[in-house]
């Protein structure tokens, strides 16, 4: 698990006066953050693959073909085929859809839930805050894999339950970081002013406080996408996640990988490479977002 440093936010004024063209800015960014730009490219390529999957490959990702079982990489099948005769490259391209879907939904819902709970906890304070923190502690300490196993055992396997299982542990992690930022914002007079004007608690939390903790929220959000993709792959690998015949990278490594590691190593190597590249890209991208949004870390 990667720990996300607690962040304090200061608004950068210099961006407001930035008059350079986007090309100059892109070149500047590439020089300042080569790793971040690389991450951004990986993210863009992945989104492209997910959207245009049917036009990128002539094969069907789910149809078995017994004439083409375990064909090594070659001209017909660039990355070879699996034990059911399905083209690996096709399944990797379609797998980007599964990964992105699970990653963005789980990260989005988890981070948003954490935002609301974290800000709410800081806003109400006192006993409510204390009880909330204890509940968060329980969920933080609870092993993720047990949560996932239980969710799958209760609701069955499938993509929406995988998302559910991944989202739950994200909420307290985001809530904790957001809360520590929101505690500082609560002391700023405009919150008192809003309360004096008679705004409801919901309105103050969502419209007045939440927008001011956007930086830590976005940092957590981008960090979560990569983590969610990785957890989904692990759960699918264990047989607890996405089920056949849906193309998912972790699932492609389940069963086949160990069995064919000697005779057909491409089955074991390429899907893992896809997971690694995707998570690597999202992590680099997330780091760049953090460096940009948190000037305190920028100089490092």
């Amino acid at each position, binding site marked *: *698990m*990667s*720990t996300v*440093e607690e962040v304090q936010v200061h608004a950068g004024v210099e961006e407001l006066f930035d008059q350079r063209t986007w090309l100059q800015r892109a070149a500047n960014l590439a020089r300042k953050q*080569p*790793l971040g730009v690389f991450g951004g490219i990986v993210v863009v390529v992945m989104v492209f693959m997910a959207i245009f999957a049917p036009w990128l490959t002539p094969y069907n990702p789910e149809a078995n073909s017994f004439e083409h079982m375990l064909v090594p990489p070659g001209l017909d099948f660039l990355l070879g085929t699996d034990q059911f005769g399905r083209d690996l490259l096709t399944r990797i391209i379609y797998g980007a859809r599964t990964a992105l879907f699970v990653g963005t939904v789980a990260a989005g819902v988890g981070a948003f839930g954490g935002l609301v709970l974290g800000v709410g906890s800081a806003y109400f304070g006192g006993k409510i805050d204390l009880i909330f923190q*204890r*509940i968060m*502690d*329980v*969920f933080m*300490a*609870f*092993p*993720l*894999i*047990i*949560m996932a*196993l*239980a969710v799958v*055992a*209760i609701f069955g396997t499938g993509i929406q339950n995988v998302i559910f299982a991944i989202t739950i542990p994200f909420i307290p992690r985001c809530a904790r970081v957001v809360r520590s930022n929101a505690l500082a914002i609560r002391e700023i007079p405009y919150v008192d002013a809003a309360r004096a004007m008679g705004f409801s608690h919901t309105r103050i939390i969502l419209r007045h406080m939440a927008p001011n903790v956007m930086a830590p929220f976005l940092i957590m959000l981008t960090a979560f996408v*990569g983590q969610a993709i*990785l957890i989904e*792959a*692990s759960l699918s*690998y*264990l047989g607890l996640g996405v089920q056949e015949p849906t193309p998912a990278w*972790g699932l492609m*490594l389940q069963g086949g*990988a*160990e069995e064919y*590691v*000697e005779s057909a*190593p491409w089955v*074991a*190597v390429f*899907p*893992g490479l896809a*997971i*690694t*590249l*995707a*998570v*690597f890209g999202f*992590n*680099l991208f997330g*780091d760049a977002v953090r460096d940009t949004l948190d000037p305190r*870390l920028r100089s*490092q």
Partner: protein
Amino acid sequence: MYKYTIKRVLLMIPTLIGAAILVFTLLRLIPGDVCMLRLAGEGAFVDQAAIDLCRINTGIADPFIVQFIRFLTGLFTFDFGTSMWTGQPVTHEIALRFKLSLEIAIMATVVSVAISIPLGTISAIKQNTWIDYVVRSFSIAGIAIPSFWLGILIILGLLITTQAWFGQAWMPPINYVSPFEDPVGNIAQLIWPALATGYRYSAVATRMTRSALLEVLREDYVRTARAKGLLEKVIINRHALKNAMLPVVTVIGIEFAFLMGGLVVTEQVFNLNGLGKLFVESVTNQDYTMTQSLVMLVVLIFIVTNFVVDLFYAWLDPRIRYS
């Protein structure tokens, strides 16, 4: 400090009770029970009376509140009961696997420290050079590589290299041997999963070492040390690194807690019989007593490690005083 310690210990209790409620409820929400699974298995016909008897014997026929109170009192009196699946005492089943999981956790932590501290230091000293970028990519790759895939690659690599060098493919042994009886066999089996997980967990520690060291290198006392004309090596090792170690210790401690309960996937790849495998088995078998005890054990390790790390932190850095 004294008051703080007491307060933290007391705050553990609600967390533990919360975890107990959570695992208890989750398990009861899963359809079916251990008796159905054990006797009927996959659709075979079985006498209803036998199932009822089994339910009474295992205690799952009692009302939930009775079961919950029994579970809680068991926790506080250290009586965890017997596994509903095997009939063996829970502590016995856990003890069998605990050694293996603990050994891997320790070895992986050693690997992680051996990778992260030198790399993080180099990366900080050579900040924003190509060396820094290579080290940072290496460490971010560690977070990005799924541990099961790294495991598969290690096995693949072992097969290929042993085939090429010795003419015969070699695989790590599958059966666990105690390190005191057969240290070579023990290491030959466990070093690979330890490498796979250690590399993964070194990533966070490397980044932490780098950023902590960068911060410390800007301190006045480092400038003073430089002005005194000390060797750069001495400045880094004796002045900077010592002070940068604090957050790194925290990260490594928390990782250790995760390693104890989170190795399900790695154990699967390397075919090891550790706590992670027991976890999966006990949930699939609906073995309430076993799952509950395991979850409580992992949660306890997690919060105690967090607590010890916090205390250690204050002890290492006299500026930190909890109130």
